[in-house]
């Protein structure tokens, strides 16, 4: 692996990332939907259910619920974005252009790198908008700069893992329609976790599931970092889940793309 090879891999990856970002500008409907949906969910849960749910958390009403639900909505944003990643990977792979790339002397991994990094940039923008809306309607996190930094770092890791999984799902799908279905199940996971209500309020079987699925420790970690709640072992679990999902997604993608 010579220095030229490495510099070509980097240059090819940069080219593919630029290509993906251009796609997002050309086809903004997907990006708008990506940002729009979690914002709608945020407003729905805060203004429609928030008063009652907030009181259920032990008083505090709507304002209390806004603080509780925002980390859950942020993670929901990442799942929505993963869906769009899977779809665009499936669409792209079906196009002749990827066959062309495969017959060219370029770094093959750069094609997937373009998708992963491009998606992560769009997810970062979506999350920033969601947090902006939450702040505008009264979300008041008490995180210190270091905790914000940790939250950003953790989200990057989580999004990274989810994106690789989405890339694999997109490659595995027979067509773009198929690609849009698989991550839909992921969309439900924040609901069957601590995203919207504490798991303690759920029936025993559901609670067991909620506590052992990846989104609950992820949400608890984020909530702890932003709101100062106790994180406990959630951080380790969330990081372990992320690393595991990233590894599976990466290896699966590589296997499918060879």
């Amino acid at each position: 692996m010579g220095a030229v090879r490495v510099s070509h891999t980097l240059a090819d990856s940069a080219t593919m990332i630029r290509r993906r970002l251009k796609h997002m500008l050309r086809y903004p409907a997907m990006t708008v939907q990506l940002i729009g949906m979690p914002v709608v969910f945020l407003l729905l849960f805060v203004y429609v259910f928030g008063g009652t749910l907030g009181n259920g958390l032990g008083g505090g009403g709507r304002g209390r619920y806004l603080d509780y639900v925002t980390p859950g909505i942020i993670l929901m944003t990442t799942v929505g974005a993963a869906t769009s990643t899977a779809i665009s990977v499936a669409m792209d792979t079906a196009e002749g252009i990827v066959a062309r790339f495969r017959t060219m002397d370029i770094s093959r991994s750069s094609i997937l790198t373009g998708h992963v990094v491009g998606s992560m940039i769009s997810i970062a923008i979506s999350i920033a908008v969601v947090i902006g809306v939450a702040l505008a309607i009264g979300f008041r996190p008490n995180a210190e700069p270091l905790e914000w930094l940790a939250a950003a770092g953790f989200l990057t890791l989580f999004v990274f893992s989810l994106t690789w999984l989405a890339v694999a799902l997109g490659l595995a799908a027979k067509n773009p329609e198929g690609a849009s279905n698989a991550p839909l199940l992921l969309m439900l996971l924040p609901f069957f976790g601590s995203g919207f209500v504490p798991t303690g309020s759920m029936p025993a079987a559901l609670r067991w599931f909620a506590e052992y699925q990846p989104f609950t420790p992820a949400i608890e970690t984020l909530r702890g970092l932003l709101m100062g709640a106790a994180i406990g072992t959630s951080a380790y679990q969330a990081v372990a889940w992320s690393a595991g999902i990233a590894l599976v997604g990466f290896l699966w993608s590589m296997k499918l793309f060879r």
Partner: protein
Amino acid sequence: MTGANPPAIAVTGLRKSYGDTLVLDGIDLAVAEGAIFSLLGPNGAGKTTVVQILSTLIGADGGDVRVAGHDLAANPRAVRASIGVTGQYSAVDKLLTGEENLLLMADLHHLRRREGRRLAARLLERFDLTEAAKKPASTYSGGMARRLDLAMTLVGDPRVIFLDEPTTGLDPRSRRTMWRIIRDLAGNGVTIFLTTQYLEEADRLADRVALLDRGTLVAEGTPEELKRLIPGGHVALRFTDETALAGALGALGTGFLDTSDDDRLTLRVPSDGGVASLRDLLARLDAAGVEPADLAVHTPDLDDVFLTLTGDPKDGSAVR
């Protein structure tokens, strides 16, 4: 094109199966540098599979392949660096403009920005796409997309170009433009490996033609050599009932039933299609008192080549 140069493409014993289906059963090919070589065959003959293997897209099950002097199995990257591929399905990025597609290729070939821009402008001009340069490729017509596709293939200045059915689905005018472009490329010393289902296309363009049928080469040679293998055309006579058909067969003493006619009322009679032989044919029918309902003169085409070389009349849907 001297004999001293090693062939640009050399294939021996190429085999490929998908599961139990044998797609290529021992193909041998040699394409001289700077030549236009055409692989001719009906849909499903294995043409695309050959291109996919030679262009490193899929692996072969057996055989030796050298492209531009590089061993395909041992050094696919070197092969990729020497080739350009324009596939059957448009390999352009539809969300990008024509110009952006070319710049994307320039970036992937690690050209300097200025150099890339200049090359893109030149190719847009050459392929008559300057006006559409800033429009997304999704708005291009079939012919424009195919021209852009080929322009993108040329960015890397490949020595060997694979064209998989480059004119399938194009209107006659775009087809002619494509032929001119392909000839120009070969004139500049680029080796062209072209697949087509059209005998006319192979005839007009290729220095050598190989005929692929169900995974084996059934003939190989110059278009002239190949055409000598084709018998004359035939006249198709359709009748209104079987009595008339039997009468005609008796009067002419030759001909066979056209199985593509569901009513089994069409007779194919070998003929060169010339005026004299037609007059003779009609006179004989007249003498026997048989009147065909319909008459069509059929000049030699790929159908006939297959009829002769494989002894297996393809149905009309397989060969056009």
